């Protein structure tokens, strides 16, 4: 099972890198070095960003679900993605930052702010309803604040300009931008994955974990900070993309036989697959204007989310 997931991921990476094939072939016909340029300078950053962002969303989604002990906690539902977008907008349009890494830091700070607010509002042991309501309130507030920040921004083009990436876009990202998102996100995700066993044990209850010498509060703080860095850096470069961080852990736990911590690695792989498929779909649409990737993930993610809510309700009332 794990092998087939890895295989599917490799196929997705290859497809994302090579499709559509026609431009590569034409470039090859004109000049082989042109094809190489196209592949390395244009396609590769996009592929790396898509795979890395998807993996970061999957792993941090699974980690957040583990510490909140709730299968609905995720970067988007918790408001972390919206917070990251707000941070990046403030950094980009108000502080005038242009360095990709500085913007990534703003994104991480925004995500951390919203997650801290969520913990303060709902608490870590909140029931599903409280968590969802608090997350929704924070998301809405952050979204409104983002719109306000754009409307009042010194640049009159801010709104138009930002629409391109706010809903998620991988178009024309440079290698430097990809690196600014992926280096922090990669480190944070790797550190999260190291906590798989600890998060499995937290699944037995915080007191049981503490009796084994873990520090559940410290662990939660660590997960929140690392998730904020992973998601925030990616959002700053490629925009807020919903549902992948919610849905990928669901598949991840199928592969980890229900273990919330060990689900992080498979969730990362599934997240990378889902996002690469979504971006392939965006590129396959024959329009002269790009559709935001976030629209595609929402289109497929919403029915899945509704199905989750229904099955959860059925289990609660059963």
């Amino acid at each position, binding site marked *: 099972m794990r092998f087939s997931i890895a295989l599917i991921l490799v196929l997705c990476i290859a497809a994302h890198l090579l499709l559509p094939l026609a431009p590569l072939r034409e470039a090859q016909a004109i000049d082989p070095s042109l094809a190489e340029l196209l592949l390395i300078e244009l396609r590769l950053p996009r592929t790396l960003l898509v795979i890395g962002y998807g993996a970061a969303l999957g792993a941090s989604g699974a980690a957040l679900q583990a510490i909140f*002990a*709730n*299968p609905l906690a995720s970067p988007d539902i918790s408001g972390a993605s919206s917070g990251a977008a707000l941070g990046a907008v403030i950094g980009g349009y108000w502080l005038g930052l242009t360095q990709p890494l500085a913007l990534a830091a703003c994104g991480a700070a925004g995500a951390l702010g919203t997650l801290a607010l969520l913990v303060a509002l709902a608490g870590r042991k909140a029931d599903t309803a409280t968590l969802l309501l608090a997350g929704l309130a924070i998301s809405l507030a952050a979204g409104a604040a983002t719109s306000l920040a754009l409307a009042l921004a010194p640049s009159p083009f801010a709104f138009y300009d930002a629409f391109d990436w706010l809903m998620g876009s991988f178009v024309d990202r440079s290698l430097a931008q990809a690196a600014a998102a992926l280096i922090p996100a990669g480190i944070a995700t790797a550190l999260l994955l190291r906590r798989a066993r600890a998060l*499995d*044990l937290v*699944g*037995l*209850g*915080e*007191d*049981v974990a*503490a*009796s*084994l*010498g*873990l*520090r*559940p*509060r410290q662990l939660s703080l660590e997960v929140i900070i690392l998730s904020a860095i992973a998601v925030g850096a990616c959002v700053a470069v490629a925009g807020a993309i919903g549902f992948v961080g919610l849905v990928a852990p669901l598949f991840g*736990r199928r592969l980890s*036989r*229900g*273990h*919330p911590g060990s689900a992080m690695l498979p969730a990362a792989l599934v997240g990378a697959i889902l996002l690469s498929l979504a971006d392939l779909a965006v590129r396959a649409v024959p329009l002269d204007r790009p559709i935001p990737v976030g629209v595609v993930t929402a289109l497929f993610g919403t029915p899945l989310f509704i199905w989750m809510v229904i099955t959860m309700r059925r289990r609660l009332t059963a």
Partner: protein
Amino acid sequence: MTSLQAIDVALDRRLQPTNLEVPAGQMIALVGPNGGGKTSLLRALARVEQAGGKVTIDGENLDPASQARRRRLLSFLPASRDVTWPIAARNVIALGLDRADGDRIAEMIALFELEALADRPVDRLSTGERARVLTARALAARPRVLLLDEPLSNLDPYWVLRFLEVFRAAAVSGQALLLALHDLTQLPEFDRALLIAGGEVQMDETPAGLMASERFGEIFRIRESAGGRWEIRTPEDRQSSR
């Protein structure tokens, strides 16, 4: 021989600094009114994050002990039987061990008659079934001290008796057990009973001595009637006992 020694263990506002010595092979009942501090004492002994004081087991300080070491020294079963995640019963038991030891897991499955449930996700089991799985998890690593919060709740009569048998066998093999419980009819099964109220250990006696004492009834606000049943104490009883 002393197994567990607790010095000034405390939990903010819930448990006053408490000293406790538990010899190996002893089965101790913790009783007391709701909110009296039974769970707090167990949690403090299990070293939850805010717990104060110091706990040693066979002279070894728990706080700096590694995870593998702690599994050999103590295990804690919380009163909550909720598990959020769809982990198979067999794998929940495996989480009680450092590495998946198939023989030991099979032994625990047989001991708690979980053969038919072993591959079902625990979040879909009944509360009583889940209690068996979680208790198996707590016992799996054969720790020297077992801290069990209301292990007999949610069980049918057969399983109450079976659990008491399993616990006694653990005590005979040299493990020390502290159990919080509410059903006073089970008290005679224990070697020693602690009465906890107001965040303090009020009495530390044999179960028979505890139940016979006037203070026991006073703290619980009950008394033994002529028929050997418990009934609620009336204000006049309190007057006359003064």
